[in-house]
């Protein structure tokens, strides 16, 4: 349908609409994230400079003296609004400042960890789709059939079991017993398999059902029957009609999975010693590394918006009915 000329004008209009909407959202997110995280970090009990010093020097080395040095170095004695305005000012120039704890540029830190986390998340999504789509289709073709019931039971179970437990089981089976995969760390692509499978199974639990529902609905639709009675083979009907219609809700759902991913990433990264963003976010929060928290949160927020933008566009591509 890409080659359809008459639709072009409204097509562009709707795409621009999408872009504008998401762009605005991104802006809102940037402000909200910055301010909220900042205010929260301000509200945290105890003296930030102590926390930061602790994060920097470890408990063998940190003491009141080092906290004092930190306080002066970071100007934590300034009033909070001054600190906030500096941050926003720098943000306007796309500068996220330096990590309070490590002294390195937040941008670099976030970028580094983001690479790993995105790799992990991407792996997870791929894994989930590879599992969810065939299962979902199989189940959706015969709603109420064996496959349907079994996969439902499985997906509820997978949804229920905590990520780390799944991770440990996978490690035991594939790494310790079979020795197929490495246990943890990141040194090659095969290190990606187990963590992303752990996350992916969790995602597949839900998305396989989404696929199933979508397919089931498409299969029971009158237009499916018609495309059969007008002479198309069952297979062609599925390929050229069912899948396309069914893919719509599935794609839309990938956006919803973002939240689950962020939560999962934190857990899985700690279990698999994965140098990712979720892991460092927890550290940053407890190390009172305001700059890092803001940077990380901002990154996560913007990724979410970006993801949804892509999904909007893909949906727009699959479904030319400009809604």
């Amino acid at each position, binding site marked *: 349908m890409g080659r359809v000329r*008459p639709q072009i004008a409204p097509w562009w209009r709707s795409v621009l609409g999408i872009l504008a909407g998401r762009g605005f959202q991104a802006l809102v997110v940037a402000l909200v994230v910055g301010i909220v995280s900042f205010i929260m970090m301000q509200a945290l009990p105890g003296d930030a400079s102590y926390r930061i010093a602790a994060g920097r020097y470890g408990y063998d080395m940190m003491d009141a003296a080092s906290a004092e040095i930190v306080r002066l170095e970071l100007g934590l004695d300034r009033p909070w609004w001054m600190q906030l305005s500096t941050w926003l000012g720098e943000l306007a120039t796309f500068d996220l400042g330096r990590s309070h704890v490590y002294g390195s540029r937040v941008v670099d830190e976030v970028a580094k960890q983001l690479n790993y986390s995105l790799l992990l998340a991407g792996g997870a999504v791929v894994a989930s789709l590879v599992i969810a789509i065939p299962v979902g289709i199989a189940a959706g073709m015969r709603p109420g059939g064996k496959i349907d019931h079994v996969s439902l039971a499985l997906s509820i179970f997978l949804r229920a079991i905590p990520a780390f437990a799944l991770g440990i089981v996978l490690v035991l089976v594939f790494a310790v017993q079979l020795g197929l995969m490495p246990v943890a760390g990141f040194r090659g692509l095969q290190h990606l398999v187990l963590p992303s499978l752990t996350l992916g199974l969790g995602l597949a639990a839900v998305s396989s059902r989404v696929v199933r529902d979508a397919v089931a609905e498409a299969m029971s639709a009158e*237009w499916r029957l018609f495309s*059969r*009675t*007008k*002479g*198309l083979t069952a297979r*062609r009907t599925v390929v*050229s009609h069912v899948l396309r*219609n069914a893919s719509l809700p599935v794609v839309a759902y990938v956006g919803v999975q973002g939240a689950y991913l962020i939560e999962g990433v934190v857990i899985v990264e700690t279990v698999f010693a994965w140098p990712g963003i979720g892991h460092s976010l927890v550290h940053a929060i407890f190390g009172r590394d305001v700059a890092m928290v803001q940077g990380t949160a901002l990154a996560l927020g913007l990724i979410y918006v970006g993801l949804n933008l892509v999904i909007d566009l893909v949906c727009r591509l699959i479904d030319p009915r400009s809604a």
Partner: protein
Amino acid sequence: MNTMLDDACVTVSVDELRVHAGRKALLGPVSFSVNAGNTLVVMGETGAGKSLVAQAILGNLPEQLHADGVIEVDGGRVDNVPVNVRAASWGRQIAALPQEPWRALSPLKRSARHVSETYRHVAHHADPEAACAKAFEALGLTGSEARLPGELSGGMAQRLAFAAATAGGAPILLADEPTKGLDSDRRARVVELLSAVPRQGGTLIAITHDVAVARALGGSLIVLREGEVVEQGDTRSILAAPSHPYTQELIAADPSTWPQTLPVAPGEVLLKACDLSVKRAGRLLIEGLDILVRAGERVALVGPSGIGKTSLLDTLAGLQTPASGLVQRAGDLGTRAVQKLYQDPPAAFPPHVSLKVCLQDAARLNGTPWTEVEDLLARLAVPLSLLDRRPDAVSGGELQRVALARALSARPRVLLADEPTSRLDPITQARTLEMLAEIADARRLGIVLVTHDVDIAERWAHRCVALT
């Protein structure tokens, strides 16, 4: 359709066809046979099992139903052949025209693709695009190749479905309620399209509840009632001299045969619209319209679908503000003195609440004693036992009458009816409109009826305003 000329005597013959759901018999026995170049019309109201005939022949009966009896297509017996095998003949030997084209065309495919893919994969046509273009031209669809089914009018969608269904070159065409929900002139075009099939040597099996359609298609006729054949034979002669009372009723229900309503002495003006213009989605639909609604008078607004009848009605009801001009109510008309009847009765009721509760609420709010409501229902022939059910558990006709009772419990002076019977079977439609008329006369109501059926407008209403 060119291939239809190829061989002369393709036939469908059905012998002692019965359809059961478990132990419950739904259809039959039915027997008939149609020759190439002939037409079979199956008539009867919804639930009479008309569709089952088509499904049995095609072989796509729902799993939980099963058919017995002998079905032969093209001289070959098919009823004992598994579905997946019979499916091979779909589109090539037998094609089926769907009931509701919008629902039958997958919503994400552009019009042309629906047809061209059939040419490509079913007819294995050398140049599908060209063939498709040809078909579009023949059906006057040229120009809407790139439009999505959702963007087509009912008539166009029906023609598109026709093109898609017949592109495979099947000589036998099953058409199930092909004219459902189409206004008269669109209906005419579809009928003409269908009658072309036998003329070109194909076989047409058409299923309808519309006497006019049956008459137009001719051929032979089977009249079904609750799954049983009540009359069978040559269409024209049966319609001319129906022997079975049910057939007579069916024919009588056809608006074109209704008696002309006698004019009444118009009462005081209840509703008055001057130089009214109506917009929908920013588009100006109706301009400079003047309408008077007097007590005891039935006004019909008639016009093709999409002309803005509904928006106009809403404007009169005060639910929508006029683009220009104004709607005046008689001074003594309260807000609830104008009530409305809807095209799709189930949509007009809260689906999860029993009818009784609905009626009781309405009665209480309008200070109408419950007994009065019950009398109304009695007059409308609605058994009180029905009231414990939910809207979806009641037939369309009954529900529309409950809706009428509900509206009346508000003691309205004006009743605005938006295609109140277009979704009903002819007999039910006739009965419903009859009752509406009675009550309106009795209560001296002013009625505005929106319809696309010119016959109804002319024969049932006192005054007919044509919107063009």
